[in-house]
């Protein structure tokens, strides 16, 4: 099974289209909504964890792009600023996905973008302000 977390940005004109429904029905993808935000002008974003075969996943993404929504991997939008990170490890307490973890060999705190679910907790909970997330 192939699983990827993606950000879907949509605009007001397609907000009523059942895009997620189509992903499930036509492309046999299971999804998990990690985040959903609707902005005042009815544009918005969805962070989804999509699970299916690699082939269906790729087809699903192609469908999304054709319908005019912007899709990108969540991992592109979350970064650990290695100049700011002091490797204190405080994030191990609040990062519930294990995306931030201590490398036992070097004792450095590393970031595994694939595990991150974009919860954004680290943005304000990292004391050194080393985590940068820009979902929009």
């Amino acid at each position: 099974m192939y699983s990827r977390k993606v950000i879907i940005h949509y605009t007001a004109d397609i907000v009523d289209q059942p895009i997620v429904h189509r992903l499930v029905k036509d492309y046999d993808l299971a999804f998990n909504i990690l985040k959903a935000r609707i902005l005042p002008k009815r544009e918005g974003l969805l962070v989804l964890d999509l699970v299916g075969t690699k082939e269906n996943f790729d087809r699903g993404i192609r469908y999304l792009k054709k319908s005019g929504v912007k899709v990108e991997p969540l991992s592109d939008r979350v970064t650990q600023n290695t100049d700011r990170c002091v490797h204190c490890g405080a994030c191990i307490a609040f990062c519930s996905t294990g995306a931030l973890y201590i490398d036992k060999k070097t004792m450095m705190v590393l970031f595994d973008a694939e595990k991150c679910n974009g919860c954004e907790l680290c943005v304000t909970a990292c004391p050194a302000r080393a985590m940068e997330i820009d979902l929009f």
Partner: protein
Amino acid sequence: MKKFKVNKTFKEINEKIRHGKAVVVTAEEMIDIVEKKGALEAARKIDVVTTGTFAPMCSSGVFINFGHTSPRMRASRVWLNDVPAYGGIAAVDCYIGATEVVEGDPLNSVHPGEFNYGGGHVIEDLVAGNVIRLRLEGYGTDCYPARKLEKNITIHDLRNAILLNPRNAYQNYNCAVNMSDKTIYTYMGVLRPRMANATYSTSGQLSPLFNDPYCKTIGIGTRIFLGGTKGYVAWHGTQHNPHVPRGKNGVPKEGAGTIATIGNLIEMSPKWIVGASILGYGVSLYVGIGIPIPILNEDMAQYTSVSDKDIYTQVFDYGVDYPNGVVKSLREVSYKELRSGTITLNGKKIPTAPLSSYYRAMEIANTLKEWIEKGTFLLGEPQEILPSEKT
């Protein structure tokens, strides 16, 4: 007085350092050396053991003299980037404390507050050479007529910037859990409900005061690594308390000794002096400190070989007990267990997280080792040892 087989003095060790002949190892390396060779042999071979710690250390701050203005002014109220500094010292002196929050900050009115800027960040900005808005108010006197002034400065415009931290490098510290039903935001980090995680904050076997548990070699005038340059132990720190329960190895099993540190902020580096925003709690300052421990005799070799498995601390509930002033240890736990990533409490496995950077602590111990090996850093013989328990 106890008789030792190895007897070295600060002077002799410094002589070796000057000639590039001192044998220096980190506190981590010392563990193996003593285990393999024994304390006596290690004391003969090793001259200095270096330590390190890097963590948010409240009770830090900077004395600043910003120089006279024209017309002159007796600045009684001072702000740096809108963070209030204490001006009741002299005409152009102030003290900026690490935990002071920027004026107008919403604090915890929307809980948990973010505390994005404060004294710790001003200090980091100073060290980094960034421009800072200095704002002064005075009431006007015959000799100091000016009443208001605002200007941009950097650390290079200051006559003095002296880091003077009343309490740093705690010898031991609590491990925190939360037994209540809601997430809490503390100076020990984010603690999830029903003991879902535990946090702790020392560098264990690398931590300076764990390696000299009775402070036999540390005192006023001890030269240390402070913020990336050399600094000194100025005094025993506030709350310093040597009279605590100890293990057989002499290591305190709860918060005990502390040191007050002093150094020239102008020589420090923003890598080792970093502002901290602690969610729901406030502002603080990460400070990097390392103390070289001279191996004067076999006892000091033994002390510096202490490892995480023989250093213990107490687990406290920060959900109910701690805020109410109830001192009730839930369990004693070793740093080996804490650093393994999980501890067991009431039959439950709890993931742990440090607040103190072991990685940076290693870097400090290694840097200090390099400085001493190169002969650029000599040991400072204390004028007076920190108050301690008799052994």
